[in-house]
């Protein structure tokens, strides 16, 4: 049964690879995993070496790519942007696809608001992708009018993939969070002079909408954390 939406990407992924993958890996063992890793490395070297032939011959290229995806190699990780298989633009289209997937997959963790930093550090870390590439891909996405909106918090770029816009109060709270990672009633009073009633209302509203996580072990006050700090947390403390 085909499912779509967040679940779809996993099932589509699983279904496509599992259909072929399970027969191949029915008796998954340490060795087999070992061989698979070697095979993947050889495949990457092969693709690198035969970049031109793969570019010229579509049939050969298509078989090669289907074989890669059948054993779970993410095509994006196979190449780097300078020596790419087709042309550099393709590299960006794959980035576009991955950005859409990551936004949908992380919606339940961050309420549909993800920072460019988190995208770059959390999901594209091992693919040597600079933020400039990411920004170009995200700009390209605007042609699809998918309701993916870019906005800034203290100069840092965020991408929203859910319908309702952040209110100005919510944005101000994310601004406070961009300093230490969290906001609290007293922080809002100190920085924005908000009355407790207003702070509690907006903070609770953001929790209800999945935009903030709650930490009640921080002492007398509840700390409301910005989930983009999950992956970028450590680096931000430099």
């Amino acid at each position, binding site marked *: 049964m085909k499912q779509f939406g967040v679940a779809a990407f996993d099932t589509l992924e699983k279904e496509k690879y599992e259909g072929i993958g399970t027969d191949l890996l*029915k*008796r*998954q*063992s*340490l060795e087999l995993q070992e061989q698979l890793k070697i095979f993947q490395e050889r495949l990457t070297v092969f693709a690198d070496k035969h970049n031109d032939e793969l570019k010229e011959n579509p049939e050969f290229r298509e078989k090669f790519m289907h074989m890669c995806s059948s054993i779970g190699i993410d095509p994006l990780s196979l190449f780097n942007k300078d020596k790419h298989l087709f042309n550099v633009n393709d590299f960006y289209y794959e980035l576009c696809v991955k950005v859409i997937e990551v936004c949908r997959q992380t919606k*339940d*963790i961050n309420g549909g608001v993800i920072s460019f930093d988190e995208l770059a550090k*959390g999901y594209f870390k091992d693919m040597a992708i600079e933020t400039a590439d990411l920004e170009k891909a995200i700009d390209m996405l605007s042609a699809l009018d998918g309701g993916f909106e870019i906005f800034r918090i203290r100069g840092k770029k965020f991408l929203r993939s859910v319908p309702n816009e952040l209110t100005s109060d919510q944005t101000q709270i994310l601004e406070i969070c961009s300093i230490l990672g*969290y906001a609290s009633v007293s922080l809002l009073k100190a920085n924005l002079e908000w009355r407790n009633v207003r702070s509690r209302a907006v903070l609770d509203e953001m*929790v*209800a909408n*999945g935009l903030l*996580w*709650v*930490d*009640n*072990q*921080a002492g007398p006050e509840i*700390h409301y*954390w910005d*989930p983009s*700090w*999950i*992956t970028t*947390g*450590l680096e931000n403390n430099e």
Partner: protein
Amino acid sequence: MQPLPPIYSFPPLYTRQPNSIIRNQQLNAWIDLILQYARENKCWTMAKTGTSTADPKFNIFHNESIQRSVSPMFIDEIWALMIKQSKAIVNNDNNNNYFILWQNIDSWASLILQWFEDSNKLNQVVTIYELSQGDETINWEFHQMPEPLLILALKPLCKRNRATMLKDEDGAPIAIKVI
């Protein structure tokens, strides 16, 4: 010990999240953390409190460096879901202790079957002890698997009539013969 992913140092991970959609993600994050820790440290069983049998000084639900720990109530919720997803099984001998299934029972069964074939032990009686502690299984991932878990992992083979379990006088499984 290999570092756990960044979310392990995210303070709110230790507070049961009120938002139910986020809590779902939080519970699954905890289960992935436990599985990852168990796999990387060959930690077959874990105490209900989260103390690792592989390294009793380590308790996954207590993060010293950020001074955060998971409340007992929430720990129960995590174990309950993990059992429901059959990624953990209560250890019958001591139900304050769980077997961690970083691979599901069927994958263990296929792995053990492959050992029997590769080391041409088919049609031979191999004791559960030998299978778990014997030198011949040293390089296999199921080496040192606790016997109750090993017995569970052998059940699918029996069910598929690829193996017969041999029991001692009290009816406790003692050895296996794979055909």
